[in-house]
């Protein structure tokens, strides 16, 4: 039983990672991964919606009529997304100004609707929670790696403006890695998103193939 539980979590996080195995949620993944703090903010917002949606759909699964399930899923996801946007605006305004649009479109993120439809609507709340946490962690891993990589390549430092998310106790300067003369500004722009994401995708595929052997 314990192993099965672990299985759901690890499976949805790594083997079925939403970003590099299922290629879901790529729009926010590419758009928001230009810095570590943006990536973390979107990861948290997505996790909030994903966990809330999976849990409530799983809890209500017996009273949701089959033909009404899509409108009801959308209702739940849209409500949670609006709550996430409000909370972000209230408690991380600087971050809100930069990533609000991409938090709003969590509502149409097929990663979330996919988990709700394929898993939570036919699983018990405990399993749905583990699935949601695994998927959210998988998405966060992909986002944070990509965000940190692009920020480092483009600015030579990592973690700038983290105070927007964690309060003024954390500095806003970030950790310098190498001098600014060695940076590639393209990495922070949209083409850089595609290039870096493709490289990471290839890396993930190669390592998956290596472990399968």
């Amino acid at each position, binding site marked *: 039983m314990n192993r099965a539980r672990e299985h759901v979590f690890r499976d949805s996080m790594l083997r079925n990672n939403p970003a590099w195995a299922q290629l879901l949620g790529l729009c926010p993944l590419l758009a928001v991964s230009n810095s570590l703090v943006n990536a973390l903010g979107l990861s948290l917002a997505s996790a909030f919606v994903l966990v809330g949606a999976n849990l409530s759909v799983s809890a209500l699964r017996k009273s*949701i009529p089959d033909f009404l399930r899509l409108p009801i899923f959308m209702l739940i996801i849209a409500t949670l997304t609006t709550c996430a946007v409000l909370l972000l605006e209230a408690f991380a305004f600087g971050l809100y100004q930069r990533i609000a649009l991409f938090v709003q479109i969590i509502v149409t993120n097929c990663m979330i609707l996919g988990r709700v439809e394929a898993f939570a609507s036919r699983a018990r709340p405990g399993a749905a929670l583990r699935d949601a946490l695994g998927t959210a962690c998988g998405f966060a891993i992909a986002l944070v790696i990509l965000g940190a990589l692009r920020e480092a390549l483009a600015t030579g430092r990592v973690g700038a403006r983290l105070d927007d998310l964690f309060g003024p106790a954390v500095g806003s300067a970030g950790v310098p890695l190498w001098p600014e003369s060695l940076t590639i500004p393209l990495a922070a722009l*949209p083409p850089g998103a595609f290039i870096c994401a493709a490289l990471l995708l290839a890396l993930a595929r190669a390592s998956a193939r290596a472990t399968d052997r």
Partner: protein
Amino acid sequence: MSSRLRSAVTIALLTLGCGMLLSQTAAWTARPIEQARAAALRDALTGLVDSGQIDAAFERERWPLALCDGITLVQSEARGYGGAIIIAVALRDTAAQEGAIDRLIVLRHRETPGIGDFIEPLTQPPWLDRFRGATASSLAQRPLTADAVSGATITVRAVRKALTQTLANAAAEELPVNAAPCAATTP
């Protein structure tokens, strides 16, 4: 019939629950959001207004507001791609001659991220700086004072239209002016 009724009741109850959750969250976050917006407006104005006058400039109902050094703070507005673009403009020389833009900052916009948001104050837009010193006649003579930005034609036109309109209004009506020099706080 009863299953139809049950479906209707289910979806109605769920909608009610979601609505209550939303209104509760909105009520709970209303104050922090208001405070955050006010703090952001204050931050934006520090680049525009002498430090002693921020409190006065903070209430937008009091605009046009005569700042020190003969500079007047006005609001400029036009419809951009995603909604209203609101710009705070500090005008000089409005009393003696044709007014000119001294400095400006975008207070609010909903332009497309990554395309039309190069006017965003967070990025300290170099593009907007090209309007510094512009007058109504300089904008009329050289409408391309600031180049168009590819992909963001509507945003560019909206900003230009807003500023042209503001300068025309400044020439037409008497704006309040305070010629007293600014307190020597800025080096």
